[in-house]
């Protein structure tokens, strides 16, 4: 409520602030609200900051906007030398061309297979792991947590050559299994950490009460705790999805044939093949949008959890 009234005062004094910032030109404006001068002193700052805020927001979203806007325009217009900032006469022709190219579906199938498998395995493994560290005290618990936290920080760039050799020696190059194996290992540590908070959030007493009432430990867990964990499982599933769907580095190394490429590799290939001629930026932007849009939608679900999972020690609540 106070927030709302703040806005109205801000808007009401908006005219005055315009006058105050452009001193010589708008003196008359400021005179219209003389009795509010003390409030407007702070409101002026707020209005100025809000304008800066809008500017920053526009600057930040511009690449995303420009991608989608350009994906709707024919290449003839895009290559006229003058960038088009407003997609008048938008068409879906670029999307049709990309989808008809055929290779997209191969990559899509690969991406879906790898992503779905990664998500399912990660959730199962990480869930059991989170259960262990949040419900039990046992020897080695702390070392395990320490290991998990460190592993989570390790860059793919520090291991991908060795992982390439591993996948090769298991004869899993260019296969769904090989790349999934690496992804699960990369995602499981953070997912355990993220789920640990959720599991700890469901009081063990609930489960115990159900056991007192005669349920077995397993059943008490499945009936009482599991449903309460659903949001956490979904959040970590989406996290795993994002990682597997977007991953580039490991995929580049272990998926080397055209038919085994995931979408990020396909997009890279798509840009490269078209750069031998003159790049059809309209189609390239349509291809980028096709990959980005599902990610953006899913991302909006987990953003809060992601932030709090990564900085949980520092931000309380």
């Amino acid at each position, binding site marked *: 409520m106070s*927030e709302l009234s*703040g806005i109205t005062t801000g808007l009401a004094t908006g005219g005055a602030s315009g006058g105050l910032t452009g001193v010589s030109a708008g003196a008359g404006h400021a005179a219209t609200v003389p009795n509010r001068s003390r409030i407007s002193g702070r409101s002026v*700052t*707020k209005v100025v*900051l809000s304008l800066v*805020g*809008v500017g920053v*927001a526009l600057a*930040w979203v511009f*690449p995303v906007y420009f991608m989608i806007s*350009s994906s709707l325009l024919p290449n003839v217009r895009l*290559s006229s030398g003058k*960038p088009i900032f407003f997609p008048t006469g938008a068409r879906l022709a670029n999307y049709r061309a990309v989808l008809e190219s055929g290779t997209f579906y191969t990559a899509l199938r690969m991406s879906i297979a790898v992503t779905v498998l990664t998500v399912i*395995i990660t959730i199962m*493994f990480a869930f*059991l792991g989170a*259960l262990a*560290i949040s419900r039990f005290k*046992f020897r080695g618990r702390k070392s395990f947590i*320490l290991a998990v*936290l460190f592993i989570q*920080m390790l*860059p793919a760039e*520090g291991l*991908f*050559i060795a*992982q390439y050799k*591993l996948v090769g020696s298991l004869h899993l190059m260019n296969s769904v299994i090989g790349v999934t194996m690496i992804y*699960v*290992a*990369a995602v*499981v540590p953070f997912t355990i950490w993220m789920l*640990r908070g959720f599991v700890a959030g469901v009081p063990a007493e609930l489960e115990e009460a159900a*056991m007192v009432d005669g*349920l*077995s*430990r397993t*059943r008490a867990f499945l009936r009482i705790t599991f449903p309460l964990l659903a949001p956490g499982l979904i959040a970590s599933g989406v996290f795993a999805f994002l990682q597997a*769907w*977007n991953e580039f580095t490991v995929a580049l190394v272990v998926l080397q044939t055209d038919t085994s490429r995931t979408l*990020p590799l396909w*997009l*890279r290939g798509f*840009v490269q093949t078209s750069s031998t001629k003159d*790049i059809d*930026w309209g189609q*390239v932007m349509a291809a*980028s949008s096709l*990959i980005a849009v599902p*990610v*953006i939608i899913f*991302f*909006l679900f987990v953003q809060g959890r992601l*932030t709090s999972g*990564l900085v949980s*020690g*520092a*931000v*309380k*609540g």
Partner: protein
Amino acid sequence: MSRSTRHDGDVRAPDDDPQAASRVTTAPVPAPLVLRRRRTPKVPYLLLIPSIAILALALGYPLFWQVVTSTKQFGLKQQFGFPAKFVGLDNYAKLVTDPYLWEVIVRSIVFCVVCAAATMVLGVGVALLMKNVHKPVRLFLQITMLLAWAMPVVASMTVWRWLFDYRRGAVNYVLTQMGFDFVGHSWLENPLSFFFVAAVIVVWGAVPFVAFSVFAGLTQVPDEVLEAAAIDGANGWQRFWGITLPIVRPVLAIVLLLQLVWDLRVFAQIKLLQDAGGTPSETNLLGTYIYQLGIGSGDFGLSSAVSIFVLVLTIALSWGYVRTLLREDES
């Protein structure tokens, strides 16, 4: 048996679970806690088996292989199956004395520090904006930040590549319109401007995370205290330095650490910009250099040694971060 069904008529569980039934009949009501401690020493280990197995296979073994391989000599012969010769620390010695590696290391560290610093300054700025603007503007700012954050790296790289395209890029067009001569200017040819473009892209993608985290920290700052300080005559800067900053310092520390670690691993961005026209030897950072050594020239010994350097650097940087998270776990 009869006791358990009497306790809860509509639960079918005990009937087909003899263990549970016997437990209930043999133990008095508050017993589960005691029982639990006695019965569970093996359970947590069983629960950890899948995670540990996959980590050991896909991370542990490669790590081990990498340490071993970094002490071996790999060359063209080994590509065709000859066993690699043990050479001790020769690879490391070769790297330490190789001026090019030092060039790449210095380049990576400078790039990492510059990006992290710029990201922090901008991210904190955006967080402060979120705190101090009108509500609709804050919402708008948050949505746009989320969109930028959600963009997959490969997709955003593609857009940025086009924005900086020398012939039809919007950047060159706008700069030319503003009166500078940027017609046909190639941003990626010169290493310095190559890294400028890379930094813009990395910072653009990283600011939202910092902004949201710091904003979450800022909401912990009690408004009453700020107001009291304002009444006592503290100006905006004094309130920021004296009240806000100490409260958000832990968040800033942790976010900065994450940025440093993440900016050290900018493989995809650099690789894709090299695709677009950078000279690899002049624009390699650690990630692309390892790739070039290992996948490009098949020298697994050398590339393993560089990888281990990256891992050690990462672990050193992560130390403080991991400690903070552990503290959270203990509380």
